[in-house]
């Protein structure tokens, strides 16, 4: 049964898509969209919204961090001094640089540079892996020193900083027992925040791998760049979160 003739209808140019050239109805245009502009606009907006949900997700953790840092500042200072600033700063630079290569990748896609795109994506991929590598070095060091909450957590570095290299280097004084116990809260937040961040990195790297594969086949340099652009947004977001994490977790009372 046809529509009621009552509804006014659009001028009939996109209804019969079959006879229009590829530029008007390219193969990547999904059928529920009217134009590639609408499609790109919608998916871009969707990615920004998704990043907003991520902000709210991390927001809960940042709230917990704010409250506990306020209550147990000395424990947070000692806990933070146990982290290696050099590794942390290196990771920060690694990520910032990877954001640069990602932005270059987006430019390559937009300007149809297939080889450049693959190169930039590969660099981003490698830098991402580098970040995870450094993170795993840091994590294993924490595991060795029994600073993982719930897994034989040890207070000795905080009760007796003279015998702990990192605490000695930072000039830490011994903490009273009740405050030393609060360092477990600090490390819980450390592992939670960096762990969830690392999970996002792993997902991102996985998608990067997929993208490199598709980019080599020319999928993103024929006009359909939204996937690369939107992933770029995601990657930059993870980078920004890390910068906050670095500042909040590594740099407490460093002189």
């Amino acid at each position, binding site marked *: 049964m046809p529509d009621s003739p*009552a509804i006014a209808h659009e001028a009939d140019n996109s209804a019969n898509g079959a006879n229009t050239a590829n530029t008007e109805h390219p193969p990547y245009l999904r059928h*529920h969209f009217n134009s590639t502009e609408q499609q790109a606009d919608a998916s871009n907006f*969707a990615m920004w919204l998704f990043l907003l949900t991520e902000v709210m997700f991390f*927001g809960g953790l940042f709230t917990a961090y704010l409250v506990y840092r306020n209550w147990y500042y000395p424990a947070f200072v000692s806990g933070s001094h146990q982290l290696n600033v050099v590794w942390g700063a290196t990771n920060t630079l690694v990520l910032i640089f990877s954001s640069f290569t990602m932005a270059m990748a987006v430019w390559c896609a937009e300007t149809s540079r297939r080889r450049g795109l693959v190169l930039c994506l590969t660099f981003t991929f490698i830098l991402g892996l580098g970040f995870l590598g450094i993170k795993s070095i840091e994590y294993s060091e924490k595991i060795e020193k029994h600073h993982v909450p719930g897994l034989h957590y040890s207070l000795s570095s905080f009760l007796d900083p003279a015998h702990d290299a990192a605490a000695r280097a930072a000039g830490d004084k011994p903490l009273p027992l009740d405050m030393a116990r*609060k360092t477990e809260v600090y490390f819980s937040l450390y592992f939670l925040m960096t762990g969830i961040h690392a999970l996002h990195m792993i997902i991102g790297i996985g998608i990067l791998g997929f993208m490199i594969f598709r980019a080599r086949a020319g999928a993103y340099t024929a006009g359909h760049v939204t996937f690369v652009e939107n992933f770029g947004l995601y990657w930059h977001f993870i980078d920004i979160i890390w910068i906050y994490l670095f500042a909040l977790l590594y740099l407490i009372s460093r002189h």
Partner: protein
Amino acid sequence: MSAHTIVSLLDQSTAKIPKDNYITRENGLLSWLLTSDHKRIAILYLISLSFFFFIGGALAGLIRLELLTPQTDLMATDTYNKVFTMHGVIMVFFFLVPSVPATLGNFLIPMMIGAKDLALPKVNLLSWYLYMAGGLLALYTMMVGGVDTGWTFTTPLSTHYVNTNVLTTGLAVFVAGFSSILTGLNFIVTIHKMRAPGMTWFRLPLFIWAHYAASILMVLATPVVAIAIVLVMLERTFGIGVFDPAKGGDPLLFQHLFWFYSHPAVYIMILPGMGVISEVISTFSRKRIFGYTAVAFSSVAIAVFGFFVWAHHMFIMGISNYAVLVFSLLTMLVAVPSAIKIFNWTFTLYKGSITFETPLLYAFGFMGLFTIGGMTGVFLGSSGTDIHLTETYFIVAHFHFVMVGGMLMAFLAGIHFWWPKITGRMYPEKLSQLAAVVTFIGFNFTFFPQFILGTLGMPRRYASYPPEFQILNVFSTAGATILGVGYLLPVLYLVWSLKYGAIAGNNPWQATGLEWQTQSPPLTENFAVMPIMDHEAYDYAWLEGQQQKDEQQHRQLHERQKETEVTSAG
């Protein structure tokens, strides 16, 4: 057209369901399970939601049976604790939060705005799979012994003091939360970017405004409960100490994180229902909603204000007196937009032309019960009376009035209202009106006594209670049996109508929305040719004009046919 009804059906002797529609376009189970058609996904949701509703309802039945007597004689206390926990988890996360948005919202939003589908159809299907994964996890939890923390997962009880399946339940809720986030995200993008030409914001049906507001909440609030649940699961597994006072953590932090979502969650549940009520009241009084702009803005106001009131669930938990002041004041403010809506709907009836088909009966039920439920919310928002009434059956009655008396009635109103559009068939009117009345009566008998029980001091989540509370509990259980009948009837006659219902045609209610200007059931692409919106929402004058044009065309066609007959005969 009869004077008593607006229902306008085709001549049933010749009427047929359109051959090409979204149901017949493709066949086979896989075509449904791998669909990206928003309408098919809505049907998938409808079936699974109904399934979970009846499980949650059965659990409710068990609760009411136990509470017939003051002692714990039907089941052990532990079992009772598991029953009410699972009832809450399933009803809140696997029925109420998705209900209207995932079924009616999914089905209708693209049609109402003149689009072919939602902005992200595959993400929509992913939402359903996430929902099913969460739901199956919840069912699995029930089968391996359930969980008894209460649906609110209060710490430190849930982290250190129960030995039931908190992890699987938490995971189920976590996964379902992502389903909700993706649905809300999809809706927001769709409403922003996929409206037909001419469909400006203030020409949108109020159903869309309501879903837009609810989607904002879904997107922004759900991630916070996700992290709260992750923290509970990690604390339980590794003892990380964020909520453990012995390690310096604070259990109240969990309360803040949890209620930061769970209060907006109730607005996620009720706003889409309010959207349904707007559509139903407008159609059955043949009038534009009174104060369209006020209703649209009040939906957004409820969403925005809803973010700032969460600590009214914590008034006696030791938060500072000044925090209590602030949250109590904000709670009073958020009550105002809801009150406004009730009056706007009432005055839509003024000088209308009203008929009393089933959707309107459910809408009236909604209005009365939501008024009571909402007003009792004010009892609780005022910090003084909250001291006496909180944590008692008054709370239980309050939220069941707004959720079941409000939201569920709106859901049923919507299912009945759009059933002809979704299936092409009408449900049996007399039987459905009876079911609506039975539901209303059963509901009041079940939950009104609970207000009194709460005022008397009966605490919630009690398996046994002092004997003087028995009479009211017996009333409540009796009402629950009536209510159960009221909910069972629609399942039966709606399924019956799939084969034997009258053929509905495009627009049996003569309603104004874009979804009614196309065939029932709709085509997969919704419209044969995309519409242009050149009139206001609820424009009955425009509809009148279209119907006259239709009639004129049919007459001309008829005359031409007769002419051809005459000339060919001659």
